């Protein structure tokens, strides 16, 4: 009878208890790791923010144009703060992954493994996004100044279009890098872009040739007619 109790009731209960203790310790381990990560992240953020401010990191970012992007998008109160927040986020993320790993289940292990495999794509996408934002701003400004200096009435429109196309290309490249519905995005972009061009061509060629000519003339031909050669002697 005693053996029966041992085998059918107490044994499974003991196993359950052991499993519960093991699971609980893993859970506590995970919570401790996450808590540590949160504390360490906050500490790192404060230290890095102060160091970057002392090193005038904001001024450097302003010079290369990142400062303005940060300011306009409202991502953070300054570039130094954003950099410190990124470090904080990375530490918390690492702690979270370590915590998940500490659970030791096949599911969490698989999740952590997949995350690390995906990390290079994330970093590459981030880099492409930053470069794209900077290039769009630079090209947009180049077009704006050149168009204003050429007396084109639609200078701001041209600059805006330039920025839009560079950003659109960047977004496609980023999504492609992240592997998000790669084929769908490329096909959608190609169809949309091709469609816009085809529609414009048909409109110009058939439906509104005169209107398009007048519109283009009024928009893009300088209002005044500067001489072929500037007669002024500036120097």
């Amino acid at each position, binding site marked *: 009878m005693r053996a029966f109790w041992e085998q059918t009731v107490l044994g499974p209960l003991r196993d359950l208890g052991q499993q519960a203790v093991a699971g609980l310790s893993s859970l506590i381990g995970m919570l401790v790791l996450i808590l540590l990560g949160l504390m360490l992240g906050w500490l790192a953020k404060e230290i890095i923010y102060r160091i970057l401010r002392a090193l005038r990191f904001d001024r450097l970012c*302003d*010079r290369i*144009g990142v400062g303005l992007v940060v300011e306009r998008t409202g991502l953070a109160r300054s570039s130094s703060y954003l950099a410190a927040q990124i470090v904080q986020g990375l530490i918390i993320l690492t702690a979270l992954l370590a915590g998940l790993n500490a659970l030791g289940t096949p599911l969490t292990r698989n999740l952590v493994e997949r995350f690390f495999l995906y990390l290079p794509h994330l970093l590459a996408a981030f880099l492409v996004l930053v470069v794209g934002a900077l290039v769009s701003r*630079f090209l947009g*400004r*180049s077009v*704006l*100044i*050149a168009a*204003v*200096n050429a*007396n084109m*009435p639609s*200078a*701001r429109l041209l600059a805006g279009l330039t920025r839009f196309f560079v950003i659109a290309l960047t977004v496609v490249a980023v999504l492609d890098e992240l592997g998000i519905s790669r084929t769908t995005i490329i096909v959608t972009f190609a169809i949309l872009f091709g469609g816009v061009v085809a529609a414009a061509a048909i409109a110009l060629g058939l439906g509104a040739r005169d209107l398009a000519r007048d519109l283009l003339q009024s928009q893009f031909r300088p*209002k*005044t007619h*500067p001489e*072929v*050669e*500037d*007669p*002024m*002697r*500036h*120097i």
Partner: protein
Amino acid sequence: MAEEILKEAVKEEVSAVGPVEILIGIPSYNNAQTVRHVVKAAQAGLLNYFPDRKALIVNSDGGSNDGTPEVVKQADVDAQSLMLVSHPLYPVHRLTTPYHGLPGKGSAFRTLFRIAELAHAHALAVVDADLRSITPEWFNLLLQPILTLEFDYVAPFYKRHKYDGTITNSIVYPFTRALYGRRIRQPIGGEFGISGRLAGHFLTRDVWNTDVARYGIDIWMTTTAIAENFKVCQSYLGAKIHDPKDPGSHLSGMLVQVIGSVFSLMETYDSVWRNVLGSLPAPLLGFPFEVGLEPVPINVQRTLASFQQGVRDLRPIYEKVLTLQQLRELESCAAQPIDKFVLEDELWVAVIYSFALAYHRRVLDREHLVKSLTPLYLGWVTSFVHQTENETPTQVDDRIERLCLVYEQLKPYLINQWPLQTGEKRSES
């Protein structure tokens, strides 16, 4: 060891001529139409004014494809027609060589300086190859102050139409004068006299792979000569008539080269100009005579339209460069009708100082920054034309003098706003 820019064949040719006292340099690029006249004027000038001095004429060519070097080799002056008083002791040697390095006038000058150094020249006169109004006397006026009065740098002084050289009048002359305290009326004139000592000094500077090697050479030489305390004077050359410049060189490109160089030199010599207030005249040599001037047409409707569009469309850029007050004043200026349009000197100078500060602080890409000045400069031109329409040359000169004084009066603002070097303290005064 310094980089050798001359080919062996050129060095041998210079050695064969031997040491010379005078070197005349003619940088050229596709100037076959005019270079013959310039070479002949140079030869006549040497025979007339320096018959007892050994001289060399050097054409430094930028790869002309219209036969400019051949024209230089063939150009000869009829010595008899010059009615020479003294018989020349030496024949005038001529040398034509392509220059090396970045394409531009500065690289041509570097080649000339190196040849002058090799030939131990005491004095150089450098003149543009597109001049139509050049006379033999110009060489006397550019060289004599160096050979007999021991000046190191002779800048040209021309009579110009009131609307000729508007970048010089609105920015380069008054700004350079206020910065370095010397009144050189044509700091980017194009014709210069340079002592052998100063040419050697120019060669030692590490600027030949920068914009100076392209088209910033004129202002660089003038600024270097003044800021480094070389003896500087001006020579009155009369009127300057030359072939129209390359139409491909657009206004904003010119501004980048010239104004960009002025701003960049402010960084090189900030320890000099921050200690200068007011200005002193530079000696003017030669005999100022009246000349007929070719009128320069200006379409003020167009310049005003450019200004108005610039103030409207480039606002996001100007917000980074100018103060809110300056921006508002520009906007109220842009709203004026053409018959009442005036851009006050104080506002114009404040705008230029703000651009100089923004250039130094790298508020945005430097080329973008200087190019964005174009519409504002055209606004100044509009205002200047409107104000001086019925003024005599003397009244116009007085007006430019007043602008110069405003540059000088507002200079403390520039000094105070200029970022200090590490460890440097701003003086209380």
